[in-house]
């Protein structure tokens, strides 16, 4: 339970990795898992339904495009939709032109209203405001006492009196004006049940206060009932936003998602700890991944998007197979490779390579790649397409242009030729079959960057050539002993 979707997504990814397209059945399986994950995160059933429908609509028939395979694309669709449901942008508190700005907090008992009132006041104070806390919860024994204690801790005045909530609200407002406080945060009583008495009381307080903002305080651990509560409050008070409390445990906060979707009000703040400072403006996108427990998956997508465009690389790899690979392609691969980080890191991802890398001065390696780039950049397009045309005078020109020695150019061209020849052989050689089988079944491309197994080179006619952990790149670049060795 609660292991989140990450592991499930991984399973899905495994199933669809080799596919160019997601079938309806693939998507249905995925959606079934999604449903369970959302329900376990306490997202309301009705929201789960509509959410599932939207994802289904976008996901069926998704094809390979760009850097993402179908599985990854579906994950991305889910994240997109989830962030959308949570209210894409961050809520901003506006202040009344004529102070005080009045904020009313409502919610069930135990949702954390009183603590929220103090936390909000603290945050406002830190932003340079002068809040006044008003304690209109005269129901719960010691609620006002609690507010006074908290107010004392954050050095914010607290107003309350033993009359009735409406009177407290009225007097509290007058007190704020008298003291010149520019924000009023009013705590109200929560009851055990949503009943008419409670609603009438809160509505009366609201009528007196005429709040600029009415926030519903919702416990992140709330289950399916959150929607009923929110609807009931919204019907009477016209909520502006929701404050989500107790998001510091492992509660997924699915309730918040439901409230946002059903009542259409954003989450303004979230409380993430017991300390009064553990409270901040809410960022929707962060909850999205929390709900799905898929920080990993998100990273995975980012990584896939960051790295080079797969198709381009694959096309180059295909040309490599056919022996029409050019120095331009080579340069492209080099650049893509470097985008992924320092060579030593990338090499470290390749099994068996980390050990070898220990003996190699990687800084030298980096500098050598710089030089190779310089050499290729100094070539004309014709030279890059066919290095065989490079004669003595061209060599001198390139060397001068790139600040290298003619001998280095010779070396590069020779290595490039060898590599091309070798790849051409591999492309049709006996090794291909075995490699293809591995590429189709076990290629870990879907995991972007985190590849850990597989042989040194995987070949697939359609997908081209890929070196696990390195994306696609010519074998000659493989590292020590290859075309780029530092010696």
């Amino acid at each position, binding site marked *: *339970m*609660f292991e989140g979707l990450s592991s499930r997504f991984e399973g899905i990814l495994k199933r669809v990795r080799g596919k160019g397209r997601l079938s309806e059945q693939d998507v249905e399986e995925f959606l079934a898992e999604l449903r*369970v994950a959302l*329900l*376990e*995160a*306490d997202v*309301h*059933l*009705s929201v789960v339904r509509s959410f599932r429908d939207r994802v289904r609509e976008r996901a069926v028939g998704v094809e390979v495009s760009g850097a993402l395979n179908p599985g990854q694309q579906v994950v991305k669709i889910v994240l997109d939709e989830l962030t959308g449901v949570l209210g894409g942008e961050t809520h901003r508190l506006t202040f009344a032109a004529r102070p005080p700005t009045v904020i009313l907090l409502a919610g*069930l*008992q*135990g*949702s*954390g209203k009183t603590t929220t009132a103090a936390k909000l006041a603290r945050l406002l104070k830190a932003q340079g405001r002068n809040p006044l806390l008003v304690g209109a919860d005269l129901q*719960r*024994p*010691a*609620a006002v*006492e*609690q507010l*006074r*204690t*908290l107010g004392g*801790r954050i050095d914010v005045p607290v107003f309350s009196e033993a009359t009735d909530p409406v009177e407290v609200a009225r007097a509290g407002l007058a007190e704020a004006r008298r003291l010149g406080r520019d924000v009023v945060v009013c705590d109200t009583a929560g*009851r*055990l*049940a*949503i*009943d008419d008495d409670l609603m009438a009381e809160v509505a009366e307080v609201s009528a007196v206060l005429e709040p600029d903002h009415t926030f519903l305080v919702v*416990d992140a*651990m*709330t*289950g*399916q*009932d*959150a*929607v*009923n*509560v929110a609807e*009931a409050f919204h019907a009477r008070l016209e909520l502006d936003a929701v404050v989500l409390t*107790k998001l*510091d*445990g*492992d*509660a*997924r906060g*699915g*309730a918040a998602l439901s409230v946002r979707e059903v009542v259409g009000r954003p989450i303004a703040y979230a409380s993430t700890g*017991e300390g009064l400072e553990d409270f901040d403006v809410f960022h929707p996108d962060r909850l999205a991944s929390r709900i799905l427990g898929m920080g990993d998956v998100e990273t995975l997508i980012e990584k896939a998007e960051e790295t080079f465009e797969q198709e381009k690389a694959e096309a180059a790899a295909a040309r490599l197979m056919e022996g029409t690979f050019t120095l331009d392609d080579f340069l492209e691969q080099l650049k893509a490779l470097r985008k992924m980080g320092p060579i030593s890191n990338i090499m470290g991802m390749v099994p068996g390579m980390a050990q070898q890398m220990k003996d190699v001065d990687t800084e030298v390696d980096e500098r050598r790649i710089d030089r190779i780039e310089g050499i290729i950049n100094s070539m004309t397009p014709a030279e890059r397409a066919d290095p065989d045309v490079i004669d003595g005078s061209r060599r001198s020109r390139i060397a001068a242009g790139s600040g290298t020695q003619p001998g280095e150019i010779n070396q590069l061209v020779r290595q490039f030729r060898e590599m091309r020849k070798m790849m051409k052989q591999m492309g049709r050689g006996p090794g291909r079959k075995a490699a293809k089988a591995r590429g189709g079944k076990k290629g870990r491309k879907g995991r972007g960057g985190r590849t850990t197994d597989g042989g040194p080179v995987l070949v697939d006619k359609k997908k081209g050539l890929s070196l696990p952990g390195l994306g696609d790149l010519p074998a000659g670049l493989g590292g020590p002993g290859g075309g780029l060795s530092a010696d």
Partner: protein
Amino acid sequence: MGLRSRLGRARDAWADRMAVVRAAEVVDDASWEDLSDALLLADVGVATADELVAEVRRRVGRDGLPDGERAGDGVLEVLKEVLVERLGGVDRSLALGGSPSVWLFVGVNGVGKTTTIGKLARREADAGRSLVLGAGDTFRAAAADQLAMWADRADVPIVRGAEGADPSSVVFDAVEHAAARGADLVLADTAGRVHTRSNLMDELAKVRRVAEKGAGTVTETLLVVDATTGQNGLVQARQFAEAAEVTGIVLTKLDGSARGGIVVAVQDDLGIPVKLVGVGEGVDDLVEFDPADFVDALFAADVAA
């Protein structure tokens, strides 16, 4: 009088779904899905809902539907039967036997621990037991004040420490105080805590140990769970059980529209029985848990009173 009928409640998605379940004239795949949905809306959780529906299907397949009822109602009857069986057959009495006995109340913030202790104090005092309250929630501002008000109402002594004091020492003092007066029972409050904070959970384990350092014996550790709690309730229960050897659940706030279905999963999964249910704000609204009553309440279809 059923649990539900004590208070009126809003019509909700759950009631709508139940109405659909009941109205079914024939049992087909859609009925099972409706039934599953209803259970999910009651916070029973996916795994438990699936199991329950599978069991009901099995029984209906084997024995057919109860005679003389509409298909939907019949399915519901079978489900109730399955649920009562699952929840039944456990001892729900609150154990005594120490001198004094200590009942420790644990749970996350805001579930109603202090209120539960207050109500129980009144009940036990009325039953003629001599008791002492221990205000072990030294973290929440004014928690001790709140408990003191309850102590006052029930006319029982309370031992409290300074705000921020070590909760174990407060509980220890309460036990000592009770032992000195020859009291039967100590009801000890603890700070609500987030169950994923291991240091706080360690503190709870310490409270439990220290409570038994003197004359006292912890005979009950009651985890207080709010009826609105969703699937996280199961995780909570597991964590608290690990830290403090939970012996029972107190389900509070069952008077809202929340169903408290998570306790089905908790008992199913962890074998921790629900012992008490809070069904209202009144001091008498803390009652023994009765599976049949609970299941009836779980399925009470519509607005009462």
